[in-house]
């Protein structure tokens, strides 16, 4: 009987395609928008990925990595003096403008790292030599910069190419693999001292101190010691978990800089609301189109379902037929929607924008929502069929 149910479904191609399209659009909107939101949020903490260090120390009122208050240069020494800290290095991080050879300007995220230790240097070099960063006017750019900082659209930056930052020469000595910044501009690494030369003069330019705990000291212990002994805010630089966000929601500030950064954007910008609205629209489209179309499919088949009931089909079997039809449409629509999302992801990841990051739970969550929509649609049909009198088939 389930095979017959599927034949009845596939036979009404207009309704079938409408149902599948409704679920596919809903799946695409929910999965794609969630992934773009997560991608955007992952971009907000890209500096933490691109400047790897176990602990970030910032000014006490700072909550997120893209908006830091300057520290005193002596704060590096204060952090070094904490007994549980193994090493500490200064970091400059700020948005600057690059003048290309053709005269046009591009925004970059300039990172200044300690020339001696090179702490905070990119983790993965694609070309060039990290050690050459110590040479005069040297910079390392990320893979996005290879295209963005080229003389002409379509060209690529090569090693030893030159551009200007605030009228000062910058020579490319390396190309690194990096996560795209929240502003969308490429990352450019140089030494801390040279970064201060590139940047217009200000009284305080130290943005953060990166450090690591001494061997045998836990990360949390080192963070607590730095906070207690310096009065600065120390954060762990590790992947944010659900627990970090839950503690933030309970108004218990996290010591995880990734979570703190993402939470700041969630709380202080309209980004989650705008993406959330689109996800809800996807859900509403799914519910409206699927439930309405499936209900109308059931109504159109009411005489046939009545005939089946008159011929001895039990209510249970009819319900199972409707559930099979609704869930078949749901799974097919979900597959197509997810395929569309994968296509979008392929393009986004290839072009490095728009942001796209799909956490593992998203496909499962969307599947659960789609199955929920199908259950609702099936229940509407079941409610109608359970009230169906088999004797109605004798009435013309």
């Amino acid at each position, binding site marked *: *009987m389930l*095979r*017959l149910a599927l*034949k*009845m479904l*596939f*036979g*009404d191609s207009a309704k079938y395609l409408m149902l599948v399209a409704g679920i596919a659009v809903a799946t695409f909107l929910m999965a794609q928008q969630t992934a773009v939101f997560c991608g955007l949020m992952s971009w907000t903490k890209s500096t933490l990925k691109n400047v790897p260090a176990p602990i970030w120390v910032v000014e006490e009122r700072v909550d997120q990595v893209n908006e830091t208050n300057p520290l005193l240069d002596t704060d590096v020494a204060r952090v070094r003096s904490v007994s549980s800290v193994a090493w500490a290095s200064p970091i400059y991080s700020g948005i600057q403008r690059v003048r290309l050879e053709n005269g046009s300007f591009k925004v970059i995220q300039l990172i200044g790292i300690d020339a001696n230790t090179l702490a905070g240097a990119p983790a993965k070099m694609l070309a060039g030599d990290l050690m050459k960063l110590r040479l005069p006017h040297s910079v390392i750019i990320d893979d996005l910069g290879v295209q963005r900082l080229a003389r002409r659209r379509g060209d690529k930056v090569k090693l030893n190419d030159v551009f200007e930052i605030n009228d000062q020469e910058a020579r490319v000595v390396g190309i690194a693999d990096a996560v795209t910044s929240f502003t969308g501009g490429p990352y450019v690494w140089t030494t801390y001292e040279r970064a201060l030369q590139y940047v217009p003069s200000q009284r305080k330019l130290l943005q953060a101190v990166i450090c690591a705990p001494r061997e045998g000291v836990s990360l949390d212990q080192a963070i607590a010691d730095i906070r207690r002994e310096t009065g600065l805010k120390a954060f762990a630089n590790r992947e944010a978990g659900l627990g970090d966000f839950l503690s933030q929601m309970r108004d218990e500030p996290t010591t995880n800089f990734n979570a703190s950064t993402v939470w700041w954007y969630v709380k202080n910008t309209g980004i989650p609301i705008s993406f959330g609205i689109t996800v809800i629209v996807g859900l509403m489209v799914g519910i409206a189109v699927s439930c309405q179309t499936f209900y109308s499919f059931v109504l159109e088949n009411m*005489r*046939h379902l*009545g*005939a*089946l*009931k*008159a*011929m*001895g*089909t*039990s209510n249970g*079997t009819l319900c199972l037929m409707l559930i099979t039809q609704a869930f078949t449409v749901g799974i097919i629509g979900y597959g197509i929607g997810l395929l569309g999302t994968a296509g979008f992801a392929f393009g986004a990841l290839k072009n490095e924008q728009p942001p796209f990051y799909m956490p593992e739970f998203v496909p499962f969550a969307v599947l659960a929502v789609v199955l929920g929509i199908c259950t609702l649609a099936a229940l509407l049909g079941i409610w109608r069929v359970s009230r169906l*009198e*088999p*004797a109605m*088939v*004798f*009435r*013309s």
Partner: protein
Amino acid sequence: MSTKDDPKIAARLRGISKSFGDGESRIQVLKGIDLDVRSGDITMLVGPSGCGKTTLISIIAGTLAADEGELNVFGHDLRRMKASQITRFRARHIGFIFQAFNLIPTLTCEENVSVPLLIQGISASKAEKRAREVLEQVGLKERIHHRPSQLSGGQQQRVAIARALVHEPKLIICDEPTAALDAKNGHVIMELFENVARGQDRAVLIVTHDNRIFHHANRIASMDDGKVIEVHDVDAEHPPPDHLSVHERL
């Protein structure tokens, strides 16, 4: 006396009444119906529209519950059975031919005919094999993979008959089987019913307005205003009385 006492009696109705609605809007559709439907016979229910024919066959088929009276079908007291038992009983013992055929348009003839067997839990391959045999018997061997929309009205009716016969029910209930057919096709269909009833000893109960087919009946029960007003046994010596035809035409 139940149908078990007389094996020729397929359905025995005594004092069957049925009303719809409540209070002042209550309408009594059946008023104490007594009727026997015999195996091996074609029994026709005739009467003007609204006299209760459709309600009566719905009650005999177990798709509608009577308010009062006794209803015994092949030794089973339908009024004492649970809804789920009646559903199973219908699936096993009753074949239906609906006025609008009610063939599922997205299924082929073979699949439509196999439905009663699938309802009983028989495998699709066995059901379709049996469906092909019955379609061949009704002369639609060449049409087994066609859909209902690709068939004429007469052919669709034959598919509906094949569907009603495929699980070898003992009682076949037909609602206006020739209403949509011309005289020639109606005659062919009625010959099929005669073969089923007399050749295979099944009970065939037909609701009809079509006086062209009265001579195919063994018994004609005439209804009016919710009552069976007369029952005629028909054979070569006793043709259907003329007043039935006049009555039907009116």
